[in-house]
């Protein structure tokens, strides 16, 4: 039942913003089918009466005092940037000419 096709893997990779070439798709898609098939055993294990657990400890509303603490300088924050200009991150264009 838990088949995942090559096209689906291509679509999911696109959603996850990873360029996969044909060779990678050929390699990864069958492996993902096997993994998915094995985890599919979980469907139907727990009934509607079982509440979900998202976190091992039941912590809620962790507050702290609103005090100013030192942060990173602009130089520190930009030190590892692929590119920067005028104390800002320099990124590739977001929109094309036609957009």
């Amino acid at each position, binding site marked *: 039942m838990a088949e995942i096709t090559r096209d689906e893997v291509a679509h999911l990779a696109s959603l996850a913003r990873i360029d996969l070439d044909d060779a990678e798709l050929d390699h990864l898609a069958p492996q993902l089918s096997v*993994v998915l098939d*094995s985890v*599919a055993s*979980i469907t139907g294990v727990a009934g509607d009466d079982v509440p979900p657990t998202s976190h*091992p400890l039941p*912590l809620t509303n962790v507050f702290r005092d609103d005090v100013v603490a030192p942060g990173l300088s602009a130089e520190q*924050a930009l030190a*590892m940037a*692929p590119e920067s200009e005028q104390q800002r991150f320099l990124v590739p*264009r977001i929109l094309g000419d036609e957009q």
Partner: protein
Amino acid sequence: MSDSVTVRRAAADLAADLASGATTSVALTQAHLERMDSVEGAVHAFLHVDAEGALAQAAASDERRAAGRPASALDGVPVAVKDVLATQGLPTTCGSKILEGWIPPYDATVVARLKAGGLPILGKTNMDEFAMGSSTEHSAYGPTHNPWDLDRIPGGSGGGSAAAVAAFEAPLALGTDTGGSIRQPGAVTGTVGMKPTYGGVSRYGLVAMANSLDQVGPVTRTVRDAALLHQLIAGHDPRDSTSIDQPAPDLLAAVELGAAGDLAGLRVGVIRELGGEGYQAGVLSRFTEALELLTQAGAEVVEVSCPSFVHALAAYYLVMPCEASSNLAKFDAMRYGLRVRPDGVDDPSAEEVMRASRDAGFGDEVKRRIILGTYALSSGYYDAYYGQAQKVRTLIQRDFAAAFETADVLVSPTAPTTAFKLGEKLDDPLAMYLNDLATIPANLAGVPGLSLPSGLADEDGLPAGFQVLAPALADDRCYRVGAALEAALERQWGGALLDRAPTLDLEGTR
């Protein structure tokens, strides 16, 4: 004392040597750096060695000791740090090409605590990329080799930290454990590893794989050393909102209690579902013998059943990829990390650069998990997969709660097998995932777990591990039972298990 003797000593003994003035931190640090020079070529436990920084920290430690003001009990004892923890001024790659050369502008809280305690940081240890794996073979910088047999895996994801202490390159190391990444490497390298209670140690500055499962902990050669390091890094951190705001139990007292050897009145529960089929015969034999030793020490051994544990692996391989796929979305080539321009595209867009960078920067296992997580979180599948996995998590917590009604600690083999050959399971993700069968339930429930060596399996002469699980916040019980078993086993062996490992520095020895 010669350097080859020094590096084999436990951290607790080295701390005593420093306190008595028998040695200096500079001498200890130098001895470990020299040991690295002779074995790193074969073991490859480290991704980055900071000799200069470690020696400077050691000299500062010696000044504190000389002035009678040590910063902690471990002041001056060198330590290695898994490369998934941010270290200011030292490269932090997480074993990934996407972070090659990245130098964090801040320290993880646990690293800050090591520095505040005066421990010289020797370097950063190898790991599966973003802690995804059970063999370190998914490191983008090449695998680590098991010091017991260089053709075999050292476990993962923290194989570098485990191999570093097993090969006597460091007396102490930090690891992280999301599904067994501290405990399983401990089992297959004959070392000790502890995953603390979830929230017991700060995760601030740990590059997250799965936030609801990740936990930092000690990697050492003895149970007492683990308690010493654990005690140093534990405790509330306001920078981690999942950190527990109450004092950690006294772990060293638990070690002393356990090492005294009396377990009278302690109820030890053997988890029926974590044994039998799929477990190597030699691993099971050592496990059964260890149980006998616990009985001789006065413990009452009972069998408990945790029926939902059979679904733990499936629940884990849904919860973890879902969290990982969102966590790794931050590697987008914009503000830090690798930026790759796609071939043959003039003036590529930010999105095209992002796609090309993530393809070039991530390895196969990371891609598999991101895609699996993206799938399981997709509308239409969410309830069937992620929703179900979260419910199974509840069932597993209930199993633990019921089992801890009849037992004070629960035990199992740490890993189903001894170390397998490098390359054997690299392209078979499912076979690789099975290594964490016995360690995953603790992460799903947030309870603490310790692994210590139980002996060598008859089939292959390689180390097997014994796992002790306790209720949340009762980490001290793991240490008590671990110390008792370690003492009993070492009496039987006439020394530490690692005394039987190949020395590595002499050509052709085994």
